[in-house]
């Protein structure tokens, strides 16, 4: 029994130490001291400043789309990359967030930021409820269920008269007045989207560095083994699903406020869902840098393809080929390749 005490005793000491960690909120403390945190801040700053300094509207529009996709890809990565669940219907968060926000702004005359925040919270709660249900499914069945969720919501919204049914909601120009008129509003919305994008990168990184993230990664590796080790798998999966809905819903609200129109086809576009999956896989599943880089590169590539006469109708063909190529030849994506070649980079990035 004396030996028993010594082994347990040493671990008690470690447990005591844990109180100190708790005092300063370990995750914040951990990521604050990491260079990667500052890299994220720098990316956010660059996105905000580059178009603003030259008053370059064209650059702003291109970066806005990139920022939207980086947000979608980073959050999808929490479910797809960390937890290992293929969420084909991830765009439902974006569309539903867009609808709630646009509706609150146009009908209830709410200020944009409050409407977007409520959109984020309500979609996140809905995702938690859905998640507890459909995450009992695994593999292909889960993937199919997520498509089902997106299509069901789309069908519901198409027939929901308060939201304009199939024609959707058009915003009148007056809603932009509180933000200093349409021209100024475009800039404000852009900065907000960049802020949400930066927040997404921080969130991805914080989750990956946390105990919660460790549990998700363990589920992604081997769900049964994770449960045997004590990971509350049903709860963790549902939380991941719910967390990954929050910022996409907000960015959906901002995006559709900016475009001034939202209708079911554009809001719940399955193609966009699939493209987001391609982005994450292109950059590297489960890596913060990869999801963001993949989204940025894919969005830029698409920009080039769309404006090139010969390719403008083949954008999806290229996406399909790209996905096939990644799955077959580079399952680790760009970051997988980089980490494989220069393992030291792994310590710097996440």
């Amino acid at each position, binding site marked *: *029994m004396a*030996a*028993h*005490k*010594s*082994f*347990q005793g*040493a*671990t008690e000491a*470690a*447990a005591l*130490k*844990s109180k100190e*960690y*708790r005092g300063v909120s*370990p995750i914040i403390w951990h990521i604050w001291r990491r260079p990667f945190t500052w890299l994220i801040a720098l990316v956010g700053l660059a996105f905000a400043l580059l178009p603003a300094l030259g008053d370059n509207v064209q650059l702003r529009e291109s970066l806005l789309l990139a920022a939207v996709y980086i947000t979608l890809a980073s959050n999808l990565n929490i479910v797809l990359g960390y937890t290992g669940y293929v969420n084909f219907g991830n765009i439902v968060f974006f569309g539903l967030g867009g609808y709630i926000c646009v509706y609150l702004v146009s009908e209830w005359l709410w200020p944009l930021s409050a409407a977007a925040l409520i959109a984020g919270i309500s979609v996140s709660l809905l995702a938690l409820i859905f998640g507890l249900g459909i995450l009992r499914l695994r593999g292909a069945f889960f993937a199919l269920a997520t498509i089902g969720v997106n299509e069901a919501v789309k069908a519901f919204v198409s027939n929901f008269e308060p939201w304009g049914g199939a024609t959707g909601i058009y915003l009148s120009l007056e809603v932009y007045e509180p933000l200093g008129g349409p021209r100024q509003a475009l800039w404000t919305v852009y900065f907000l989207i960049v802020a949400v994008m930066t927040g997404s990168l921080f969130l991805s990184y914080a989750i990956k560095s*946390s*105990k919660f993230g*460790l*549990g998700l*990664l*363990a589920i*992604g*590796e*081997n769900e*049964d*083994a*994770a*449960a*045997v*080790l*004590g*990971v*509350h*798998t049903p709860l963790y999966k549902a939380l991941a699903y719910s967390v990954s809905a929050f910022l996409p819903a907000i960015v959906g609200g901002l995006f559709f406020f900016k475009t001034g129109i939202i209708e079911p086809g554009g809001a719940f576009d399955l193609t966009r869902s699939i493209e987001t999956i391609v982005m994450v896989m292109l950059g590297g599943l489960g890596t913060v840098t990869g999801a963001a880089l993949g989204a940025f590169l894919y969005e830029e590539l698409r920009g080039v393809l769309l404006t090139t006469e010969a390719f403008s109708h083949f954008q999806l063909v290229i996406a399909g080929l790209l996905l096939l190529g990644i799955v077959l030849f580079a399952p680790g994506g760009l970051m997988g390749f980089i980490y494989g070649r220069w393992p030291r980079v792994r310590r710097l990035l996440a």
Partner: protein
Amino acid sequence: MTALLEVTGISKRFGGLQAVHDLSLTVLDGEILGLIGPNGAGKSTVFNLINGVYPPDKGRIVFKGQDITGEPPYRIARHGLARTHQIVQPLVGMTVLENCTVGACFGRAHLPLGPAREVVREAAEIVGLTDRLDDLAGQLTTAGKKRLELARALSARPELLLLDEVLAGLNPTEIERMITVIRRIRDGGIAILMIEHVMRAIMSLSDRIVVLNLGGKLAEGTPREIASNPDVIAAYLGEPEPTAASRGV
């Protein structure tokens, strides 16, 4: 010595196969209980029933005086029960350190990340994996993966450890080392229920042994009693020749 784990009359049927039938066993505080039996006797199923992978059809499982029958594995792990798998289940894309940290973070210890890493270092030292902590689990040898299973279970600071054939596939030197490790763990105050086919090891390690055959209990007793029990010799150790029994001891 009080009972740490009390299994009473559990049964489990898979389709037409009665895998476990009306089995009762007790693990006392601080002891090593061996669970042996021929292939297909239902040993691994007993483990899966105890740690909640499947609920039993009948019977009760009480751990530390608390009824845990039918609870899911993640809850049972939190009560202080950890296990290794016969077919190793490493989280291959994660390092040895990360694998064990999962055990320390989510098992009975339930530590935050920082302190969890300290506990993992202790566990890794006990099983001899200290210099492999930063390697990916998928890169370990079979013996390495067996040790990882053990280190990961140990990182949870369990009160009861279920070891499912941790010696299988190891060479004689590795077996010797592992036996020392298991003794050390028991001496550290952790009770062990172990399934093993390596007779020499189970006979020397166990305080008591339960023999399973066709899903039910065939015999129970000290290693000496088991080795000389004619039913056991007939069902498990082979033909009842006197040499077989003496070799078993």
